[in-house]
């Protein structure tokens, strides 16, 4: 009832309120009035971050369907970081691209609410609502540059396939509800454990459909078709946002559902996810090598990273859970930084995301080239960056559970992926051609965002113990 505690939803409430205020501000904005709407968004996000930190170790729950355990709070903090960095990069690009600022930020904030709810929900029905909230926001953001055909096409493809995936997910929820009589993760877990239903075909069907739904959102291999098109067509900042935020939220819910209530069935689903993870890593890497558009290449790279995350999920041990959290943080910072650089180099007419556009970048924008190099090295998993520790952590989790094959595939595909990350670095530093249209001077805020991401990447890479401890503390409270 209404008297139950509100604590667990405070972070979401902050972001949602910020979204409502932004929307109202936009509604009452004068025709050419400028408003510091991005600032409002940041205030809301910082408030949510503060609330998340204050809720640490309190294990608050609200309404019986939302929890604020340390796991979800860690994911919240990652998502808030993603939100803040995205706002910082957007401050430059939305004006340049003629994107309606108020609506953009409002939809983004509501999308973050959905993402946070994905991590915090403990009921399949609420997870579905969160999934829809998040997805709807991202569909809109993908197509927000309406005058660009590519953007519209990307949004349309993403929407159609996403709607399909959502219905698969819902179908899976229906099967699980049909057998266990509940959508609550706890209840489902106890029913499955008590009645040893792992051979029950209805449950297997439900779990299979859930895997389809989640795998789509994570862009894991048989269900990855949408992501290169959507990532390429969306404005670069939005691509950064969706490749990190959506993935983090989906993985968080994936982990919660499969390692809490479906844990008793791990022998049933682990082989399936093993295959998906291996295929995702290999295909993301191999196809990524052949790309000529940087955005597309990073889209495939992001598919491959989804595979590494799933490897942690397959491992299913404590190291794996903590590794997933660490990986999410490292990947979010790195990928956002990389897409931030791409976004800042674009112009209104042209995205400048072709590989050749990066030739000689070091000559024209030395700082950006150096930043980009670090992000790419981190994506490839070089020390001393965050990507190295994250990958090492995930693979050690896989080995810890005896999945040597998966770890070997992962290491091999990271080695191959180095090829295409380094190709860009070589392009930027060793070639001379510089014929691309010069982008507008980069604002301080956007630069600060890039430097922040770089600081995060290096911090996680050089002094990872604090965050690793933090991640381990996050998983100790649940599961």
């Amino acid at each position, binding site marked *: *009832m*209404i008297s139950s505690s509100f604590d667990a*939803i405070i972070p979401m409430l902050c972001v*949602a309120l910020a979204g409502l205020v932004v*929307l109202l501000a936009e509604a009452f904005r004068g025709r050419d009035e400028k408003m510091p709407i991005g600032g409002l968004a940041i205030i809301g996000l910082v408030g949510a971050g503060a609330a998340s930190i204050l809720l640490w170790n309190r294990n608050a729950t*609200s*309404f*019986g*369907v*939302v929890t604020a355990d340390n796991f979800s709070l860690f994911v919240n903090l990652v998502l808030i970081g993603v939100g803040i960095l995205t706002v910082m990069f957007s401050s430059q690009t939305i004006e340049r691209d003629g994107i*309606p600022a108020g*609506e953009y930020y*409002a*939809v983004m904030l*509501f*999308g973050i*609410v*959905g993402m946070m*709810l994905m991590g915090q929900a403990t*009921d399949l*029905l*609420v997870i579905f*609502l*969160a999934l*829809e*909230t998040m997805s*709807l*926001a991202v*569909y*809109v953001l993908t*197509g*927000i540059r*309406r*005058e660009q055909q590519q953007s519209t096409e990307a*949004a349309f493809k993403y929407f159609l396939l996403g709607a399909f995936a959502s219905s698969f997910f819902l179908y899976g929820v229906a099967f699980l*509800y*049909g*057998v*266990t*009589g509940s959508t609550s993760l706890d209840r489902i877990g106890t029913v499955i454990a008590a009645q040893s239903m792992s051979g*029950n*075909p*209805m449950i*297997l*069907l439900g779990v299979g459909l859930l895997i389809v739904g989640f795998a789509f959102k994570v862009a894991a291999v048989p269900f990855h078709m949408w992501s290169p098109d959507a990532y390429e067509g969306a404005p670069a900042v939005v691509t950064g946002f969706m490749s990190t935020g959506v993935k983090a939220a989906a993985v968080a819910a994936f982990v919660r559902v499969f390692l809490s209530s479906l844990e008793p069935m791990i022998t049933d689903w682990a082989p399936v996810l093993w295959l998906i993870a291996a295929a995702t890593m290999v295909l993301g890497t191999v196809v990524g090598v052949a790309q000529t558009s940087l955005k597309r290449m990073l889209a495939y790279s992001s598919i491959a990273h989804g595979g590494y995350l799933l490897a942690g999920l397959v491992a299913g041990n404590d190291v794996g859970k903590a590794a997933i959290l660490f990986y999410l943080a490292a990947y979010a910072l790195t990928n956002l930084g990389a897409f931030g650089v791409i976004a800042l180099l674009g112009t209104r007419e042209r995205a400048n995301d072709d590989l050749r556009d990066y030739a000689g970048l070091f000559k024209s924008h030395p700082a950006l080239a150096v930043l980009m190099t670090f992000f790419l090295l981190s994506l490839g998993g070089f020390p001393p960056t965050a990507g190295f520790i994250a990958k090492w952590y995930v693979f050690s989790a896989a080995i810890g559970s005896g999945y040597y094959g998966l770890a070997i595939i992962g290491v091999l595909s990271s080695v191959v992926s180095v090829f295409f990350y380094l190709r860009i670095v070589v392009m930027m530093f060793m070639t001379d051609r510089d014929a691309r249209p010069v982008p507008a001077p980069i604002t301080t805020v956007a630069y600060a965002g890039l430097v922040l991401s770089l600081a995060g990447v290096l911090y996680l890479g050089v002094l990872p113990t604090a965050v690793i401890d933090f991640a381990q503390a996050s998983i100790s409270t649940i599961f």
Partner: protein
Amino acid sequence: MLFYAFAGAAVIGSLLVVTQKNPVYSVLALIASFFGLSGLYVLLEAPFVAVVQIIIYAGAIMVLFLFVVMLLNVPREDAAEWDRAHPLYRPMAVRIGGALALLLALELAWALSRTAGLGGGVADQHPAVSSVAELGRVLFTDYMFAFEVTSILILIAMVGAVILAKKKEE
């Protein structure tokens, strides 16, 4: 008996939607299909869902469909030509799609055949929430948070509709 009448209406309606050449006829057939579904909901003792099915699907969503048909206003011949030329109509794509659909149907049949002895599942544990007042009570107590989240969802849809469909300002 009634079940077969309604289910038949729904299935035939859907088949007509797919096979009609004129998109407006497709839309009308879809309404028939929705009415069949609504009848099924009545049989499942879910009157509220049945009524909502009529009001929202057969009402609002069909209006939307019709407007889209009018908005695009594809002449019939062009549409047929487009159909034939579409890559999804290549025999390979059709075969693979057909095989996957068949696979899904087989899986469902397998699962259903295996669970014959399982008993009612949900029905044993929960009394059906059949009256609308009872539904309201459950919705506003057990599912209150989900209910509030729905409003955010609708709000995003609203904003999204406005930015994606409104005329450009300049």
